[in-house]
């Protein structure tokens, strides 16, 4: 019971963008569908040339030119610890804005924007193995399918601190 209350509480706190609440952008990585709150999404673009940057974590592929702005891009597959996949015409970059930090997320393909009422969202299973699981915010039930809903903050920033301390990048 308290789990559901937790989820609800979080939603309440994000009520400022309540028109977008409950709406998720879903995308595909491999066979599974993932999603996160649409309120973070600024735009979606096709994959383009990425310029490598030295000495960054492996999942940061580099930077791209977005209409004159230079933004970093993260390969979500690599972030999940999955194998890299060659980019094709369906590969997209989802540009998100989190606290004024703009980052692009490279995904296999983008699906749709759907409404998922809170009732249909389950708390992530507690038994977690593997790196990717820490980014899961919840599991959304949509008709016959399950979408893995992600915590953007964690997706972008978790472990960053450790990494920064470890590498020479924190100059």
């Amino acid at each position: 019971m308290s789990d559901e209350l937790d989820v609800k509480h979080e939603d309440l706190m994000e009520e400022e963008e309540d028109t977008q609440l409950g709406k998720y952008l879903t995308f595909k990585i491999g066979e599974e569908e993932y999603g996160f709150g649409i309120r973070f999404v600024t735009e979606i673009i096709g994959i383009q040339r990425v310029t490598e940057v030295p000495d960054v974590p492996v999942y940061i592929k580099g930077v791209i030119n977005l209409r004159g702005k230079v933004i970093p891009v993260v390969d979500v597959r690599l972030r999940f610890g999955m194998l890299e996949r060659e980019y094709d015409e369906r590969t997209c970059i989802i540009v998100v804005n989190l606290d004024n930090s703009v980052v692009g997320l490279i995904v296999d393909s983008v699906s749709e924007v759907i409404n998922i009422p809170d009732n249909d969202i389950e708390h992530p299973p507690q038994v977690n193995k593997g790196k990717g699981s820490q980014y899961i915010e919840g599991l959304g039930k949509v008709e016959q399918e399950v979408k893995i809903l992600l915590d953007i903050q964690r997706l972008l920033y978790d472990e960053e601190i450790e990494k920064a301390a470890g590498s020479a990048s924190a100059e």
Partner: protein
Amino acid sequence: MSYDIGQDDEQREILLGFIEEGREMIDEAEPLIIELEQSAENEGELDLEMINTVFRLFHSLKGGAGFLDLTTISGLTHEAETLLDMFRKGEGQLQSHHIDLMNRSCDFLRSLLDQIETEYHDHGKEEEAAEIKEEIRLAIEVLKSGGDTAPAKETEAPPAAKVKSASEADQQPEPAEETSAVEAPMSLEDFQLTISPEMVATFVNEGSEQLEKAEEALLGLEKQPDDSEQIQQAFRAFHSFKGNSGFLGYGDMEKLSHGAESVLDLFREGQLEPTSKVINHILEIIDFLRSTLIGVGNGKSANIPATPGLLHLLEDYTGTTLVKPKKQAEPTPSTEPESVEEVAIVEPEPEAEPPVVQQEKPAPKSVAKPTSSAKPTKDSAGADDTKKASTQQRQSVRVDVEKLDVLLDLVGELVISEAMVAQNPDLKDVDIPMDRFEKAVMQLDKITRDLQDISMSIRMTPLSGTFRRMVRLVRDLSQKAGKKVDLKIIGEETEVDKTVIEQITDPLVHIIRNAIDHGLETPDDRVAAGKGPTGSLTLEAKYVGGEVWINIVDDGRGLNKERILNKAIERGLLDKDPSEYRDDEIWQIIFLPGFSTAEKVTDVSGRGVGMDVVRRNIENIRGKIDIRSTPGGGSVFTLRIPLTLAIIDGMIFRVGNDRYTLSITTIRESLQVTPNMITQTMDGQEIIRVRENLFPVIRLHELLDINRKSRPPLTEGIIMIVEDEGRVICLFVDELLGQQQIVIKGLSEYIGNHPCISGCTILGDGDISLILDVAGTISFAEQISPSLQVTVDVETLQEGQKDKSGSKGGNGKKSADDQPAEVVEAKKED
């Protein structure tokens, strides 16, 4: 005010406008006030125009405040204005404590403005204001009743004078008791004429406390001669006592406490042993002071006939005359500020000051120079617009900084877009002649460039404002530190970007503090070291290459290498053997957090938090700090700040599939090498010989650990010889792609910082090019491969710095010019 002014937007705007103007005015006034002091002391004559300017500034401030019903401000500025008026009309001698009053007023006004900014009113500080006003009125009275001659001659209180109401402008015969009354039209309201009994009472009370403290400290000192805390305490007590007596015109008491203070200063500097004998003399003085104090409290005279005698006794110790016949008629009313220019402690030669001030430099602004040419407005070698910046004549428009930022961003984007059009890859495919198009593009290019120049210059402000603020700081600091400092300001008209100004103020303050507190020696020390008693501090700004250099030069004792190294060792800050540190590296140690070699903590400096913050601030504006120092000769701190923060001339080159950019100011030369120029050491380090120099080669992709399929031989590409501060390396690149103006963009914080990369830019075809930071790259390369020997070039090193070549470790190759040539000769034979 019956309504809440904060609610009214329009009123708020007006208030904020007033605040801004007010701050500017105070900024303008302060350095002038200080100059007035010096000019008065040195020449005995006041620069009329300067006084007028200050007067006008206060007057305007008063007017504005009055209009906005800011009574505290208008009241205070009114008093100040009145005082200034007297000097303006030649009705009084400007003395140091008047300057102090003005300074205090300025400080207080600033704090009022701060308050108004947030609270929209200036109430709540009436008491403080009243205090200052009181003192100003007092000063005015003193002047009116006899000008500069010491009131100590008569009874302590200046003679009663009748007050005239505001409007009266003509002379009134004041029933002055003895001295010639210099009449002045007084336009003051409810003015207290004599030194009020309350003031005397306060003085007596405080005074006895101070004397007690001093006595206690001295007794303690006698038991523990090396207790510096006691010395400090006694010093402070006498210092305050001296100040207070001076204000009230109790000349003898002031002199005596000054004498005591001087002796204590000698204790402080370790020049004199606190023996019982000396301490006894000082205690005697305390006794005299005490009894006189009581007498004053009972309405008796503050004269102490024994003063000369007592002072003479002290002279045995100070070795100089404390009883000095002042050349100007200001024996006593001057309080502590003397220490800057004519401290009685040292051989009094106020005439010596001006010659100590520089002569040769053509256009430097010497703040100490008393002549009329030292007027702030005329001195700038720059054009009229800089004059405008500092005079009242200013045609300007107030613009919201945010709007400016947006404007500049847009201009930056425009530059990129323009490049994207002019260099569009699609154009290559066009077959038809493109003459008209190219002409049009050239025109567009030119206009864009002009727009860019102008918009950059909009944000540029001269450093004069910042430098001027330092004048006051130097004065206060040098007094506190008991040192004589002659401040020179050169190149204040140099302009830098607004953000730079904001960021360098703190670092400047820190460095100047250090220079005065630790770098410059006391007059005695200096004389002992064969230097003039007045230390010199120079603030200089100039353009060098693509940078603004701000030099802070002092001729003090310089940085102490041993002390720095030892402290660093103590704190575990060294990461290699001490003997392996070059001089310039040793100086840089002082920027490490937690470092400080000061033995005494004087205010803030000495606590080890200053310098690392300094460096960080400078790095925030992508600048650097260089230090040069010679023991006994002084130090030079150079702040090097890139001139245009965002747009540089870049050279674009290709390595593999990636394109990089470098600032062309770092490129010495580019060439293609032939096999005979190449040498390879046993570790695989490639070295190129160019004429008589040997340079290590860096393959960029390897350095940055970016994958690359092939490793072409050096002969199949271009070698770029780049340098930073005398450190030179060769970069091996595949192709040079051309030069263009680029807009520097930061890499997102998400990416973090790489020492070799200082940002990125978007090229004409939309691709991103990383910008290489040459300095960072060289350092990084040295770090990565310790066997790398970076050439330290003799010619480019500035004079004074020891040339230690970068040769370390085993390979036995030196990078000096002579030897290696032979080595290479031996190798090559073709």
